[in-house]
């Protein structure tokens, strides 16, 4: 694993090395060396300190649009700005007939990172968010009608993430203010749930809140909304981190979006985005495409298979019994 990550890191590093200072290069390769061998933590700290002299993050309120961050990074005026680089262990998840879920490793490093002072609150935080394809979702509420529990209220929400995993270095509320988290769509409470139908059944704002809470609760119960508050760990010092995210078998098939966000003192410094392709393969894909693409023929085939299976079984057991 470490070897693979090193290679990935190295590739990243070479790809982006154009127009960078020699000192930076040195610092980065040092970081790689430290990660691969796992010793001399002090060295990287030293190098980092050398290349990134004390830059106080401005205390002003939320860093908003990630695009502005990228702009700042692209211009060479502020080379000392922290930047997060990351990658994912698997860029494509294949759902085959033996699919029982999988594990996704997100790893990365902080470029131009400053030394950490363990006593102070001046620490880097990393939040990794993995989101499934948004789906239209209907939530229903039962109530007692003449002694029977029957669905009486329903709300259909537009594009609710089918899956939502958050992994962070510490609890989200310690990392940043709710406002900042909301601006970056982090946290179950921030999941956008816009009702598109169901208002006609007389649902109030209070009901809507309960419905939203129920959706999150049910998603959590089925393992589709997961949060790991200490899931991201720094390895080999300050600048390299990794986290493991479980992708259970009941995650609806579709493209997943991964985001890695770097925070310091409650502010988002840099963000990285990538996609994880999740698709059916082999017999699984064939059957699914057949059933949804040609449902009439699929139904006829199902009947033929069933009848053949029944006849085969009876002739086999019939002959055995006759003997």
């Amino acid at each position, binding site marked *: 694993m470490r070897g693979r990550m090193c290679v990935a890191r190295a590739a990243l590093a070479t790809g982006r090395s154009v127009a960078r200072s020699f000192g930076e290069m040195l610092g980065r390769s040092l970081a790689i060396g430290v990660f691969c061998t796992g010793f001399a933590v002090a060295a990287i700290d030293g190098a980092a300190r050398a290349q990134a002299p004390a830059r106080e993050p401005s205390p002003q309120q939320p860093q908003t649009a990630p695009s502005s961050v990228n702009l700042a990074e692209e211009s060479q005026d502020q080379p000392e700005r922290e930047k997060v680089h990351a990658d994912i262990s698997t860029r494509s998840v294949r759902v085959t007939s033996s699919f029982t879920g999988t594990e996704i490793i997100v790893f990365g490093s902080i470029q131009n990172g400053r030394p950490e002072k363990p006593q102070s609150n001046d620490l880097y935080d990393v939040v990794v968010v993995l989101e499934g394809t948004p789906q239209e979702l209907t939530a229903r509420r039962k109530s007692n009608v003449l002694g029977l529990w029957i669905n009486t209220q329903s709300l259909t929400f537009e594009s609710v993430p089918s899956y939502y995993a958050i992994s962070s270095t510490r609890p989200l509320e310690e990392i940043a203010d709710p406002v900042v988290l909301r601006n970056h769509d982090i946290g179950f409470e921030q999941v956008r749930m816009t009702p598109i139908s169901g208002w006609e059944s007389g649902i109030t704002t209070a009901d809507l809140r309960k419905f939203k809470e129920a959706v999150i609760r049910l998603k959590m119960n089925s393992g589709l909304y997961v949060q790991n508050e200490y899931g991201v760990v720094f390895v080999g010092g300050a600048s390299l981190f990794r986290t493991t995210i479980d992708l259970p078998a009941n995650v609806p098939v579709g493209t997943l979006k991964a985001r890695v966000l770097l925070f310091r003192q409650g502010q988002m410094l840099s963000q990285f985005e990538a996609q994880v392709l999740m698709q059916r393969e082999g017999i699984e894909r064939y*059957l699914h495409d057949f*059933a949804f693409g040609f449902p009439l023929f699929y139904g006829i085939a199902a009947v033929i298979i*069933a009848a053949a299976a*029944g006849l085969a*079984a009876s002739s086999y057991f019939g002959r055995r019994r006759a003997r």
Partner: protein
Amino acid sequence: MHFYLPIAEMSANIFIFLGMGGAVGFLSGMFGVGGGFLMTPLLIFSGIPPAVAVGTEAAQIVASSVSGAIAQWQRKNVDFKMGTVLLIGGLIGSVFGVQLVRVLRAAGQFDMVVALSYVTFLGIIGSLMMIESANAMRKSRNGRPGTGRRPGQHSWIHGLPLKMRFHRSKLYISAIPPLLIGGLVGVLAAIMGVGGGFIMVPAMIYLLRVPTNVVVGTSLFQIVFVTAATTILHAYQNYTVDIVLALLLMVGGVIGAQFGAVAGEKLKGEQLRFLLAGLVIAVCLKMAWGLIGTPNELYSIAPALAGGH
């Protein structure tokens, strides 16, 4: 060993479903019933979405009834004319039932209607069977042979128009009652995932007075074609037939049925019926509890269904 079910969209332990098919197959072999009324609730209890359970079970009933139907046909125990009338009713009922499933699913009421249908039909059939078999057991203990009840020779059925002659059954009756019975069975096949023999057999014996030797063959003839049509319609309109799951159940079912048939020979008819009645009532109560018992979670979520296609 797990297998990802393509329609149910879940990873399932294949041995659980093979075992489930085997257990229900054993019981259906022992009691000589189709087993759909046990299988569908079991699938629902094990987490398969009710609509997928119903659609898939229709395919499995095709497999489990086709060989029986052919065997009965070879023994000339099928009244084709009666069977065809029942079948026409059944096909109409099935088309209607599958539409009903689509509408109810979109309205979020399908799970409740399935449970309610099971509670109603299993409750009625189970209690009647239990009373009947208990009486028969008591009679046989008293030394008197338990003869089948033959109520009065004429009833309202003989007053209906559209009379037809059914040679094989030696009957001259209106075509309306068999059409209605077939239609009801078709609707039940579509919404409950059953063959419907548990309704059709008593109805043919007691309402239509079809001779017992052709009842089973004729009802199997109808069941094969109605469940086949139901399977195709469910696959076409609701996308709820999981062929992988159906195959697992079929394999388990045919093996279980062989052992069940052997076990069934060791028990008396009324004892078998009493046990079956107990089982039917147990499933009914479990379903009823789901409707009456206060749920831990009032809310439920499901992917929104696109309205029609």
